[in-house]
C-alpha cells in the first residue's frame, strides 16, 4: 500500500462514489439522477483498475471486468432514459418532485 498513485486513485474512486450519491440525493431532475448513477459506475470501474497498480498480474482480468461493467452500465442507463422519456410523456416534466404520488 505504499504506492502513492494507488492511494490517489482509490481516494478519487471513493470521492466519485460520494459525488454520484450526492447527485442522486439532491438533484430533482430525472436525467441528472441517471448521470449520478453513471458517475457511481465510473467510480467502481476506477476502483477495479486502481488495484492493478499494486500487482500488474491483476490487470488482464480487471480489464475484462471493467469492459463488461461498462456494458451493463450502458444497459441500465438506456432503460433508465426510456423511463425518463415515458415519464415526460405522462407528466410533461422530468422533475422528480412531480413524481411523488406513491407514498408509504
Amino acid at each position, binding site marked *: 500500500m505504499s504506492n502513492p498513485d494507488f492511494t490517489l486513485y482509490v481516494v478519487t474512486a471513493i470521492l466519485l462514489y460520494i459525488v454520484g450519491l450526492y447527485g442522486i440525493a439532491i438533484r430533482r431532475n430525472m436525467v441528472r439522477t441517471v448521470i449520478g448513477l453513471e458517475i457511481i459506475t465510473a467510480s467502481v470501474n476506477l476502483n477495479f483498475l486502481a488495484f492493478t497498480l499494486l500487482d500488474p498480474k491483476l490487470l488482464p*482480468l480487471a480489464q475484462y471486468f471493467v469492459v463488461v461493467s461498462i456494458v*451493463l452500465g450502458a444497459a441500465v442507463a438506456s432503460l433508465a432514459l426510456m423511463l425518463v422519456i415515458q415519464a415526460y410523456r405522462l407528466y410533461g416534466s422530468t422533475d422528480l418532485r412531480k413524481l411523488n*404520488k406513491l407514498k408509504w
Partner: protein
Amino acid sequence: MPQSWIVLQPIIILFAGALILPTIEFLGKAVKLEKLRGTVAVIIFGLSLYSALGVYGEVQRQGPLTYFLSPYEPPIGVDFFVDQFSIFMALIFCLLGLLISIYSIKYMEDDTGLDKYYSLLMTLVAGLVGISFAGDLFNLFIFWEVMSLSSYALVAFKKYRWEAIEASFKYLIMSTIGSLTALYAISVLYGLAGTLNISQLASIIPTLETYPPQLPYFIIATIIVGFGVTASIVPFHFWLPDAHPAAPSGISAMLSGVVIKAGVYAIARVLFSIFIPTAFNFGTTLILFGIITITVANFMALLQRDIKRLLAYSSIVNIGYIIFGFGVGAYALNFYGVGGYSIAALAIMGAIFHVFNHAVGKGLLFLGAGSFIHEVGTRDLMELEGVGKKMPWTGVSFSIGLLTLAGVPPLSGFWSKLFIILAGYAVLGNSFMIITTSIVVLNSIFAAAYYLWLMQRVMLRDPKPKAKGVHEVPILMVIPIVILGLITVIVGCWPFEIINFADVAARSLLGLLMG
C-alpha cells in the same frame, strides 16, 4: 469435483426461449394462432424445470458440480458451481416461473406486446438461476444485472400508467445503487485476493493480513447493504411497496416470491462461504437487521388499505425472518466456535425452508389477489370485502396462503418459523439472543393477527356492491393458485422430504467452510 455441462441446461433453455419467442409471435400472427406464444412459453418453462430436476438428480448422485467454459480454467474463465443450496433455490425459481407463465396466459390476455412480456420473464428466471449457479462473484454480478434489468422492465410493463413508470424508476435507481455498492465490495475483494472465484476466495480471505485490519468488515457491510437493497432489508426497502403493486400481478408474485430471495441468497453465499462466521462476527449485524426489518414492516403493513401493498409489506416481514435465521446461524458459530455447528445448521435450515414457504405462500397470495383484482377491478380492501365467497376456489386457496404465512400449525409456514425460533432460543445463556428471539416471536403473533383480519375481510364478510356480481376466474388462472395451495398443505402435513433437502442445503453452505 465432477465437471458436468448439464448445469448450463436450464439457463441455456431459458435464454434460447427468450430469443425464439418473438419469432413464434410472428409465426403465430401469420397463421392466425395468437395463443401460440403462451403455450410455447409454458413449454419452455416446463423444460427448464425438467432440466433443473435433472441437475438436482446429478447433485444428489455426485455431490456438488462445477463447470467452466473451457479452455479457461478458474479464476480466469466463466465458472459455475452447483451445490444443494444452489439447486434448492433454482428449483423454486423454475417452479414459480412455470406456474406464473400458466397464470399469465389468461391474466394478461388483453395486453399487447406479450411476446416481450414472456421473453422478459424468461430472462428474469434465467438470471435468477444463473445467480444461484454462479461460481465466481463477477459472474454472479452479471446474472444479477440480467435479473434486475428484466425486473425493471417488467415493473414498467404497463408503460402508459404513471404508477408503473414512477415505481419502476424508483426501483431502478435504488436497486442500481445497491448493485453498484456490491460491485464496489467485489472490486475491493478482487484487489485483496487477486481472484473472484468463490472457493478460492474461501481459502484466501480468512487468513489474509489486511491493512487496516478492519477492512474485511468494511467489505461485509458493503455486501449486506448492496445486496440488501434487492433483498429489501428495512432501511433500504422503500422501492418495494411501490414496485410490487405497480407490476402486473403475475410479476408481483415473481418479484415478491423469488427476486428478493436472490438478494438473500447472494448475501448468504458471499458471507457464509467467503467470510467464515467463526472468523468474522457478522451474525449480530444480520440479527439486528432482521428484527428491525420484521418490526418496521409489520407496523407499516397494518396501515395499508391496498391489498397488494399489504402483501408487499408482508414480504419484507418474511425477508426479516430469513435474514434473522441466517444471523442466528452465524452468531451461534461465532459464539460457540465449531461447537455451534448443530445450532447453526438448524437455524440456516429453518431460514432456507422459510425461503421455500414464503416463495410458495406469497406467490399464492399475489396470484390470488391478482384474480380478485381481475374480477372486481380495484385493489382497495374495503371494496374487495366478501369477494372470496363468490370465488370459492381462489378464496379458499388465498386463505390457505394467509394461514401458512400466519404460521398456523398444520401448514408449512409453521415449521420454518418454529425452526428459526427454536434455534434462536437454543443459544443458551445469552441475553442478546433471548431478547431478539422474543421480539421475533411477538412480531410473529402480531403478524398472524393482521393475516387473520385480512382473511376475515376477504372471506367472511358479506360481499360489497362491486364484489356482488363476480364469478370464478377462468380455469387456467385457478390451476396455478390451487397447485400452490396444495403444495402448502402437502408440505405442511409431510414436511420431512423438504426438511431433509433444506438440511442438506444448509450443511452444504456451512460445509464449504468446514472443509
